[in-house]
């Protein structure tokens, strides 16, 4: 039998009970819409996290110093200060794939100019730092290698800090006092926005790490380095090389634990997206359950339909329909039902995220994948839940079906 003719019969049968058809479809509509909406919310959250990770820079490798154990408590990586200036220079010298590396010295300090002052994070870094973090300058220039060697009293200030200290006025060329030491502002950093945990990345002052160690912290070791690999493909190779080099330099016996930690940007972003991924999967599963419930609704209504139309099935069998024709007819009816529901559900699923974004400000991202999957899934549900009623119809005995009252 021609599929087109079967489709016509199916559509007619569905139209005959328009209300029933609509209610049955509602299960699939809600299920499909929920899946698409949930996945788009998950994707939106993931995209946001990824965008934030991207502010870290490109092909970045973080090297953190090891643990300090105090009274039985580990203080976490970065607390021990096992990284030295010599480590920094060795990595820079011996691993050619590292295109840039910068030590990091962090401290909070009171910064003042004129009658304004604020407590701001001061980061001592190398001249490569801006390049590694893909951080542009809005005004002025970066400090030079020479400034670093000389522990020059120069500073780059973040957008927020500049606004706090100078208002809308010119920042470059001004003198700021960090812990009472006068530093000349040579550059204004471009705004970078909020970090993952909600910290303002622009409330910061960058100074040469040598200056920070000498004039601000008095520390002799580093808690972390930021390095950059030449390309994403080299990331894990560079990671291994750094690990080997540092183990060798720190004289760590084979089998013993590292006293430092090397993490690539990729690993960091993976860790960050893991949580949102788990959440998305969980919600999508719940939404998927409603799809299955919708499928059971279809099966239920198809069973009713088969019983109601037993006589019709008998007539069709009597005039020469094969079992397969009857099977196909009811299967197509079920699939039409679920696909129509799927299409309406997709429309609803595409509108819902827009409404959420507009009203709640949630980031959402409707992916073509989730639409395709929802569409195929609703078709599959039609076939799966339509098969049993259709087979029941196809296996009817023609005489009994004709006699059915």
């Amino acid at each position, binding site marked *: 039998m021609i599929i087109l003719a079967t489709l016509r019969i199916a559509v007619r049968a569905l139209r005959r009970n328009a209300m029933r058809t609509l209610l049955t479809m509602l299960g699939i509509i809600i299920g499909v819409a929920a899946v698409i909406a949930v996945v788009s919310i998950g994707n939106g959250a993931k995209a946001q996290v990824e965008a934030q990770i991207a502010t870290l820079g490109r092909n970045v490798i973080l090297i953190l110093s090891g643990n300090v154990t105090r009274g039985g408590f580990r203080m976490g990586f970065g607390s021990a200060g096992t990284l030295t200036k010599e480590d920094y220079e060795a990595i820079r010298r011996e691993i050619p794939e590292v295109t840039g590396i910068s030590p990091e010295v962090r401290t909070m300090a009171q910064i003042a100019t004129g009658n304004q002052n604020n407590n701001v994070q001061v980061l001592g870094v190398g001249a490569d730092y801006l390049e590694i973090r893909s951080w542009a300058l809005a005004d002025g220039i970066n400090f030079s290698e020479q400034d670093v060697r000389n522990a020059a009293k120069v500073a780059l200030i973040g957008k927020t800090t500049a606004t706090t200290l100078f208002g809308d006025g010119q920042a470059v060329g001004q003198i700021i006092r960090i812990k009472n030491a006068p530093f000349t502002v040579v550059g204004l950093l471009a705004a970078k926005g909020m970090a993952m945990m909600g910290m303002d990345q622009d409330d910061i002052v960058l100074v040469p790490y040598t200056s920070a160690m000498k004039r601000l912290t008095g520390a002799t070791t580093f808690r972390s380095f930021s390095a950059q690999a030449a390309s994403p493909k080299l990331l894990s190779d560079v990671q291994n090389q750094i690990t080997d080099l540092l183990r060798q330099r720190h004289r760590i016996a084979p089998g013993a634990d590292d006293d430092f930690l090397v993490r690539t940007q990729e690993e960091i972003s993976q860790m960050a997206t893991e949580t949102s991924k788990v959440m998305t999967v969980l919600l999508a599963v719940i939404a998927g359950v409603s799809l299955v419930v919708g499928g059971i609704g279809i099966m239920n209504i198809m069973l009713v339909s088969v019983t109601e139309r037993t006589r019709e099935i008998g007539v069709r069998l009597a005039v020469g329909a094969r079992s397969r*024709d009857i099977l196909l007819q009811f299967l197509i009816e079920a699939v039409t039902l679920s696909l129509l529901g799927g299409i309406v559900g997709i429309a609803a699923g595409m509108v819902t995220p827009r409404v959420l974004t507009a009203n709640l400000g949630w980031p959402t991202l409707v992916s073509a994948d989730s639409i395709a999957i929802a569409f195929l899934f609703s078709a599959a549900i039609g076939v799966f839940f339509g098969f049993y009623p259709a087979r029941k119809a196809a296996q009817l005995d023609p*005489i009994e079906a004709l006699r059915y009252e």
Partner: protein
Amino acid sequence: MIPVIELHDLCKSYHTGEVEVQAVQGVSLEIRPEEFVAVMGASGSGKSTMMNVIGCLDRPTTGRYLFEGVDVGELSRDQLADLRNQRIGFVFQGFNLLSRTSALENTELPMLYSRPGLRMREQRNRAARALEQVGLADRAEHHPSQLSGGQQQRVAIARALVNQPRLLLADEPTGNLDTRTSIEIMGIFQELNRAGMTILMVTHELDIARYATRTVVMRDGRIVGDRPVTERLQAPVELRRLDQEHQAIQLAP
């Protein structure tokens, strides 16, 4: 010439609950092409069960059934369906039309299941021709609920004819119709028969049986009588007589 139907010692029993019912108990029958046979019998005589077997809707329990020389007992379910589709036309007492479906589409129904399939246009044309044959060309778009009983039965006959079958099976075709309409239906059958159609009709009305060429009488699952119709009725003649009678009592103008 090969008989259209050949039954050899056909038995059919079925179970209703615990009881086994011997509906047909050893029937042998031969129906030749272009015969018009009326099967008569009281209810429960096994005539409907025999019709179901002959119509390939059911299989015999024992015995053989040859349709045009082919042993039906050896055919698969699909082959039986194709046989019903191509070689046999059914007319039922209750018409069995699909409701909310036009007369034309009801007539097209068997062609939906024809293999190889027919083009839509061809289906439409053949259905229209079949409706014309039964005098319903002007009612093609009507739904069964908009048609009288006689008209519904004509649609059913058109449906039975549309695939140009060899055999027309009619189970109490006039059971739900008034006298005049019954005669009209018999007129259609006689015309078809004259054109070469083999017809097997179940009826319990003696008058209706007299339009056939041969009557077979069944009782308790067996054939107890089989003879040609001697004083055969002709539908046009009977219709004229009916009109005169109606005029006499002013039922018709």
